[in-house]
């Protein structure tokens, strides 16, 4: 059990003006940092399970010295990098390996080396909004198709979408639709609770919620939980106009489309950033994209992009920085649950804020997986040619989760949760769902079932 974050001293919580990192090393120049020491190779979960990926050192700092525009490299091997960033975190010298690989993949796309069929497939699975926008309104039908083995086999043969890969069902109602529908009622409740229970919370505090595509189309319950927690902290939650963060496009080498996506988000979000309103997201990959990946990979270094990046927070990171968070009355949840920190979450380089947040819930025991990656890496594991690799990468994690013997697993990132469910048969929830439940929010879905069961058992 890990309980490494304790109640902070409030004076340590300065909320000064955002500052930039003291230096910025451009991606390609970072290869000069490499001392060839091979540590990245020991960290790479993909090279560990397949020969198709020659490893982070080979692809990035090594291959990088031989790449220039208009030449017949890179080859497809770089496409087997899942972008999990384990190499970046292990590298003692600061080579931006994952970023170099993402750029090399973009070169593949630019050079027309990705066959048209696979590029179509990549664009289909990378455009989560397009998929969600089309399929969610007809959720029952879409879900039936996704669950149909024949349809999935056809998709594998024609498009190369792995037939066995797990697609979550579309939600009946979008998150934003729910948010609009309930805004009045929530405002009233907030006004009431401010007067009654929570004098500490100031009503003027605002936060912009970046829900991401998964919450919007698949798991609106997670958004509801997040809103509940934020409102319990006394925040007025704004859901700004937003679109996909562009990460799936970035990791498929579709930089032009990703740039458009990020530019649109920046345009909409920067007005909040300018007012000092934090932008908070529950999807750790979306927030990392806003913070760093998009600006870095797309060379967007303008002021607006920077402001958005500097004002974006991962949900748990944000909670830990709120003095009021430590005063929230959390009810016990007497469960022992396995927790997996997604690779993209480690990429924030913040340690493990989710564990710190969950440590607030009495009686809840969290066992950390310390696994490198679940394997799915966004869209990676959905591809026919990479499905087996993704499953092999996830194997140690699956083993760990199964060994805990809990009714569910906890994980911050959507595709990782789905991959965990696919690999272990166990449902997976976001930490915020547990926190909301502990704060008295009506629980939904699998968590509701587990907690109800637990309750019944206790009574019996």
């Amino acid at each position, binding site marked *: 059990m*890990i*309980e*490494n*974050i304790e*109640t*902070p*001293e409030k004076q*340590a919580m*300065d909320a*000064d*003006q955002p*500052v*930039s990192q*003291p*230096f910025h090393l451009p991606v390609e120049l970072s290869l*000069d940092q490499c*001392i*060839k*020491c*091979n*540590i990245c190779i*020991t*960290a790479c979960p993909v090279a*560990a399970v397949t020969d198709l990926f*020659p490893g982070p*050192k*080979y692809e990035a700092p*090594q291959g990088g*010295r*031989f*790449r*220039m*525009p208009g030449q*017949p*490299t*890179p*080859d497809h*091997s770089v496409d087997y990098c899942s972008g999990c*960033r384990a190499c970046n*975190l*292990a*590298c*003692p*010298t*600061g080579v931006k390996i994952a970023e170099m690989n993402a750029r090399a993949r973009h070169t593949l796309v630019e050079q027309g080396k990705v066959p048209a069929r696979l590029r179509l497939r990549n664009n289909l699975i990378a455009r989560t909004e397009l998929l969600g926008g089309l399929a969610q309104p007809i959720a029952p039908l879409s879900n039936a198709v996704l669950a149909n083995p024949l349809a999935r086999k056809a998709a594998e043969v024609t498009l190369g979408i792995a037939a066995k890969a797990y697609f979550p069902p579309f939600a009946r109602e979008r998150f934003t639709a729910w948010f609009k529908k309930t805004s009045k009622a929530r405002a009233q409740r907030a006004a009431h609770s401010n007067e009654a229970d929570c004098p500490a919370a100031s009503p003027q505090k605002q936060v912009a919620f970046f829900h991401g595509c998964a919450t919007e189309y698949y798991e609106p319950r997670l958004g509801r939980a997040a809103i509940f927690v934020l409102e319990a902290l006394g925040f007025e939650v704004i859901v700004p106009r937003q679109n996909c963060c562009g990460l799936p496009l970035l990791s498929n080498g579709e930089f032009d489309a990703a740039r458009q996506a990020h530019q649109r988000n920046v345009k909409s979000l920067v007005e909040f950033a300018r007012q000092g309103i934090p932008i908070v997201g529950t999807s750790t990959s979306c927030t*990392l994209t806003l*913070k760093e990946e998009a600006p870095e990979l797309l060379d967007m270094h303008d002021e607006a992009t920077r402001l958005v*990046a*500097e004002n*974006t927070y991962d949900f748990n*990171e944000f909670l*830990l920085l709120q003095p009021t968070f430590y005063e929230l009355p959390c009810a016990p949840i007497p469960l022992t649950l396995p927790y997996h920190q997604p690779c993209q979450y*480690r990429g*924030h*380089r*913040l*340690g*493990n804020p989710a564990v*710190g947040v969950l440590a607030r819930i009495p009686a809840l025991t969290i066992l*950390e997986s310390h696994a490198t990656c679940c394997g799915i890496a966004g869209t990676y594991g959905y591809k026919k040619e990479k499905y087996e690799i993704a499953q092999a990468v996830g194997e140690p994690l699956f083993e760990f989760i199964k060994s805990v013997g809990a009714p569910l697993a906890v994980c911050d990132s959507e595709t990782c949760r789905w991959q965990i469910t696919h690999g272990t048969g166990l449902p997976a929830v976001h930490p915020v769902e547990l926190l909301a439940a502990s704060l008295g929010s009506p629980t939904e879905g699998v968590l509701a079932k587990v907690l109800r069961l637990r309750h019944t058992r206790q009574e019996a």
Partner: protein
Amino acid sequence: MKIIDTEILVIGGGATGTGILRDLAMRGFRAVLVEKRDLTHGTTGRFHGLLHSGARYAVKDPAAARECIEENRILRRIMPHCIEDTGGFFVQTPWDDPAYAKRFLRGCHEAGIPVEELSAPQMLAREPLLNPNVTRCFHVPDAAADGFAAAHANVNAARQYGAQALPYHEVTRLLTDTGRVQGALCQDLVHDEPVAIHADLVINAAGAWVGKIGATAGVEIAIRPGKGTMIAVNHRIVNTVINRLKMPSDGDILVPAHTVAVMGTTDLQVPDPDQFAIEPWEIELMLAEGEKIIPGFRQMRFLRAWAGVRPLYQETKTGPSRDITRSFVLLDHEQRDGLAGLLTITSGKWTTYRKMAAVTVDKACEKLGTRRECRTHLERLPQPDSDRTPAPRRHHTLGERLAHVEHAQAYGDLICECELATRSDIEQAIANGQAHTLDDIRRDMRLGMGPCQGGFCTLRAAGLWHCLKEPSPEAQATNAALRDFLQERWKGVLPVLWGQQLRQERLNELIYLNVLNLDHLPGPTASPLRPENYLPPGHNPQPGEGQPTPASQPPPAAIRRLPPVDALVIGGGLAGLTAAWRLVCRGHKVRLVTKGWGATHWGAGCIDVLGYYPIESHQAIESPLLAMARLALEQPAHPYARLSMKQIGEALRAFQELCAGAGYPLHGSLERNWLLPTAAGAFRPTCLAPETMIAGDLTDKAPMLIVGFSGYHDFYPQLVAANLQEQGIPARAVLLDSAALAGLQRRRIDALTLARLFEQAPFRSAVAQALLSHLDQAERLGFPAVLGLRDPLRAMRGLESLLGRRIFEIPGLPPSVPGLRLHQILVEAIQKSGGQVIEGAEAIGSQPSQNGRQIEAVWTEAAARPLAHVARHYILASGGFLGGGLMTSATGEVGERVFGLDIQSPQNRLEWVQRQFLHPSGHPIFRAGAQTDAQFRTVYENVYALGGALAGDFVRERSLEGVALASGFYLGEALA
């Protein structure tokens, strides 16, 4: 004495000599070429690799410009595989006279050099790093040329026409008789025997050395060698040749050459072509001029510097002996000095080498009374036999090697990873018999020319060399070749050793000293074919302009802070992990932040406490306890002197207990060092070794079988066994065929591939099966240290029961599987007790308190904004120069980054390192480190320094792990 008779003898294996040899052979002469070292050993191997368009000389020397463009066109046609068609820019920076452009354009026009002007945006689109303040940019047909490949192509062509080239044949003197040169007496350096070569005509094409050759026959040829120094940037920062738009001068060319960019050059007369230094002011000049072309140039990583000597001829006699063209010199000594049978050709540029050869051979024909037409411009030069596909039909390109590796899926077959030289490349270079040193392989295959400068490939190349070289070398000869090559690489990095390259060299030192113990292998420290060092700097002093100290970045204001902890440990090596482990065990809240992983992954995975003392000693320490007692008396500031022997013993015992608890016992004690074999076959003194290694102890003389796997390029059992034999241990080697082992039919076999396989029983059975017939007298079997990551004991015992022999591991090149195990054990112990480990979190600054006596916060780098950490104690365990805790700059500053601690080091950068890589006293810079009091406290009351961050050369002492563990343990306990 060996005697060779020929028609024409050519002296000098550079561009001119090899060009002449081909021309002679094509015109039907019997010809022999001698070169004192390898081909291109002289100036040809040390120029910046520029095929001139002639534009550089358009104003200064129109005749040379015309010659260049003519030859440029011919060379592109006849040797496309040696030319990379980069094109060239002439850029007008704010420092260049705008009036020059007009003269430049007129000159190019008159010489017939095509010029095209580019707009600034067009230029920056092609070369984004160029100075945006460039006002004009002209494109010309400059190109990058491979002087090594071209010389080889010329010699190969000549050989096809029946000529002979003899490298490592040094001319002792010209043979003269009655006013006529009749050949030369040479020394065959490889076989160390004299060879007399008789010829009707001798062509002295020895470049800057023609004067020395002439002098042996009493002829005065006044050569003023003009030294030019160049530096190479770690990667191609430009893909076009960049020239400054001005009269040719120093430091005004930047050439993309293969994987690097070469900045050059200086021009300085030196008295002797064999005796010159690379001066610091020359390096400074390159940096300053480079900065004008590419802003930020100064901060880039430089791989090495080198200098060549241009042969500048000064006529001392009058008469019609000088050739009409001013760009080179052809002397007919019969006319000039009354000495028949000798021509001298010198000066000139690489670009015009073919023309120089043609004119020389024309003259030779005249001398021999025959008329034969030159055809060298008509025929293409042969490309080297190679399995590289597709064979380049066009000019060679940067991406060619990568494309080949990708096409052949040869990812797992790289010997020199930096330059992508494959095993078959190296084998070919060895097997064709022309490679007499590892350095010859480098010239053929670019071995060791990349960022690590031989750090990883030297052992591999030596391993292959030992197995394949004909006649089979003695172990001692291979050891000398290995040391020679490390020294050859070292001499070139010396002038640019700061920053990341110094860090690289410290890693190389760790590999070759700590892991391989190369400095204690049997055999001479160098071979007769060793490379000459440059002279030490100071021979051509010229005050370099000073450079302002780059001010350290003020730490950014905190915007967010993680909740405070008791101790923040900075660094994830053995010292930091140990301190964190002790503190969490005592119930403290600990956060360990680390940029990445470190020394555990590089070392041997043992605990070296003290291997050699004093470090110059050849004799390994038997009892660390006794030696430490002496050290503590003699070096009171040493970390060991600040601890009692009891404390050090406790630290070791506690760590042993931890490892034993994790099922990975470490054996040994302070009373006695183990002597364990290294992957080079040396004896390595170490204090604690894992159970998987101790059966290799060399105080036991039981016969060994050393086992390797084909395709695993980090371990050469033949070399290990040969060296062990040499030192009196009966040892044999076997190389198992990986393709025949179930599970190992892999495209890429590295230490981790093998380690994962050894965890599986079926694989172990397959290995045991394959070994049964090789066991013979062997009582113990040495494997590379790859017997599993998680449960190596099980793998070892499994093999032992299958084979009925003792099994041991031999650690080798990084990554270190045994080191990974120790790392894993410590990290898990910390996490189990509630400690927090944050990876990828580089500490970038700190906030001192107002009175300056304490630290209040430390920042780490994180996505979008830094993260502040508040702790009661800050423990600096970020290592030394290798770990990244200490940084160095070109101007000689040595700094500690997080707290700005004062680091005592030699003031002058020239005193940082020795001129010998393996110098027994070690390099002074690596003794630098943080100063602390007896409790490891720094100038700040709540900041402590540990392990590699402390002052002392723990790599040379072989005390790296001991110091880390002892200081980490002591501090952890003291603060708890």
